[in-house]
């Protein structure tokens, strides 16, 4: 039983149709990125742009990089980079903000 499970886990071959659908999704998101870049969402402008970028990155990682059918260990490493990146960004930016170095628009 374990062996069968392993086989499903590692030998999964993503079909061409999935790749094409993900590619279509990425094209739509790309058009959305440019649209969001031009449109004005007020204070959430940058946040919306980043969310679209994160969606694109997630699609690429899940399907093109086969994370969807990877083992738990690969998942941990796949998300670890972004986990530490978020720690680095949040703590550093929080520090700059708290010290008043970030003064807003000049």
């Amino acid at each position, binding site marked *: 039983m374990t062996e069968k499970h*392993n086989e499903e886990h*590692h*030998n999964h*071959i*993503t*079909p*061409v149709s999935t*790749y*094409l659908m993900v*590619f279509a999704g*990425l*094209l739509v998101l*790309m058009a959305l*990125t*440019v649209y*969001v*870049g*031009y449109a004005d969402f007020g204070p959430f*402008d940058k946040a919306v*742009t*980043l969310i*679209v*970028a994160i969606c*694109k*990155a997630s699609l*690429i*990682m899940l*399907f*093109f*990089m*086969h994370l969807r059918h*990877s*083992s738990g*260990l*690969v998942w941990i*490493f*796949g998300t*670890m*980079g*972004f986990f*530490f*990146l978020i720690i*680095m*960004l949040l703590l*550093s*930016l929080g520090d*700059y*903000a708290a010290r008043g*170095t*970030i*003064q*807003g*628009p*000049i």
Partner: protein
Amino acid sequence: MAHSESSLVAPYFKDIEQQRETNTLGMWVFLVTEVMLFGGIFLVYAVYYFNYHDAFSEAGKELNLVLASINTLVLLCSSLTMALAVYACQTDKQKMLVTFLTLTLILGAVFLGIKGFEYFEKYEHGLIPGANFHYEGEYPLQASLFFGLYFAATGLHATHMIVGGTILAIITVKAMRGFYTSVNYDTIENMGLYWHFVDIAWVFIFPLFYLIER
């Protein structure tokens, strides 16, 4: 070159599945370090973006959005062709494998060509930070910082494309000789992981630099 499965497995692995998982995991560990490498530039960019918001918005308008959008499309297409190359290798379609590896290589070269033209444009407009930096806008000092970060981020990305393209070219030649099969596809899979990572880096560089307060 036909391989029997047992000849492909290194003696310290239980079976080919364990070897494959180890290869994939090793590549992901490397990609974690890459995320942190690009992350450093994004952090510096974020700090200065909040400090010099107006200057960065003004300087960002100097970048060529049309060329960058075309490049985004080119890179997405190359990710698709790379993914299809992995599929071809897993299903032992040798001709398809070579075709898609070559297509990926060509699209990568197109990206670098367009990028090179963009750099040339910046050079002609005197927007390369240094002694000859020449900027008409209101905040030349801060703009110099923006272009410095622009060249650091896109330059690091382009370096990754050049390294990736070189390895891809070697792999393509080996694929033409039938080196990779549905049993022996780890190298193609890892090449794909690297190529998609470089695409993801661009997915963040593109909106951060080119779409800044349009």
